[in-house]
């Protein structure tokens, strides 16, 4: 069974970087996949990777991480201006961050319109 936990942005908005990262790692270590509304700062993403490595052990091999950012889309003209405007207004609330324990999530594939989580259970079903 795979558990997804949605974390709205307001739950991390007022936390410092260290506490934000700790909150997400603590959920991931419970073998849950985090769906965070919005995105972390790039330095916080790096801290997330670093702390995941510090927690490395027999039962925790790290994380799979994917950030979906609407303003990353290759658009031009009015759409680009609109994306930049909403990016300015919403800041880090825009987008979606997915973090999962590597022992459950084998891969996160991104394309412009969707993300796919490949988990160990699904991988095992395919082998059958």
């Amino acid at each position, binding site marked *: 069974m795979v558990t997804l936990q949605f974390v709205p942005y307001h739950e991390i908005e007022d936390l410092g970087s260290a506490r934000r990262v700790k909150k997400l790692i603590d959920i991931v270590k419970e073998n849950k996949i985090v769906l965070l509304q919005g995105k972390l*700062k*790039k330095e916080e*993403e790096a801290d997330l*990777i670093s702390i*995941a*490595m510090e927690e*490395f052990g027999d039962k925790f*091999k790290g994380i799979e991480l994917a*950030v979906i950012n609407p303003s990353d889309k290759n658009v031009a003209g009015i759409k680009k201006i609109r994306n930049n405007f909403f990016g300015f207004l919403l800041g880090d609330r825009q987008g979606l961050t997915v973090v999962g324990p*590597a022992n459950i999530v084998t891969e996160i594939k991104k394309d412009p319109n969707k993300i796919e989580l490949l988990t160990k259970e699904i991988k095992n079903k395919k082998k059958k």
Partner: protein
Amino acid sequence: MINIIKTFINKVLRNLFKKKKNIKLGLYGPPNGGKTTLANRICKDWLGEDMGSVSNIAHETREIQIKEQISIKSKGKELTFNLVDTPGIATKIDYEEFIKAGMKEKQAKQRAKEATKGVIDAIKWLDEMDVVIIVLDATKDPYTQVNITIIGNLQARNIPVLIVANKSDLKKADIKKVQAAYPQYNVIGISAKYGNNIDKFYEGLFAIAG
């Protein structure tokens, strides 16, 4: 054009407010992209010796390696730097992959443990870098979260970046795909192993660090 102007302005501002010192040039990227192979190529070209060991098994470099005072010359210009080869950055490490590559379990677990420490050190050392070369395997998808995170961190720190699409000697190498993934950066296709296009790499290095 705007990006070139931005890079130039950033360089001027950084040089105005920073004391002249040996530039720390870091090689960053995911595991097995060819960072140490490129480090060896640079060291062989200018010092006549290798810098580190290479392997087909990921995470061969598990500690920060530094070679000081490398001087390179091109078209009448000279650049001196300390070359910093870093462990590949990954979000997960699975010792079972090392076993599949032929290692024994005890050795594989030890390698995985050392590799995690290497990742932590590589991330810590980001703050120390003056210039960074991102070494990507041109046969693999360039638009991975790890690459985006590393590049984003360098952008946030205003550190000049040159992207190298390595392994251009392989049939599956797609330099254009790497260039399309990071259009805001200078991306140079090379083969660090065979030295293909290495002169263009040195030119690119002078452009961002010279």
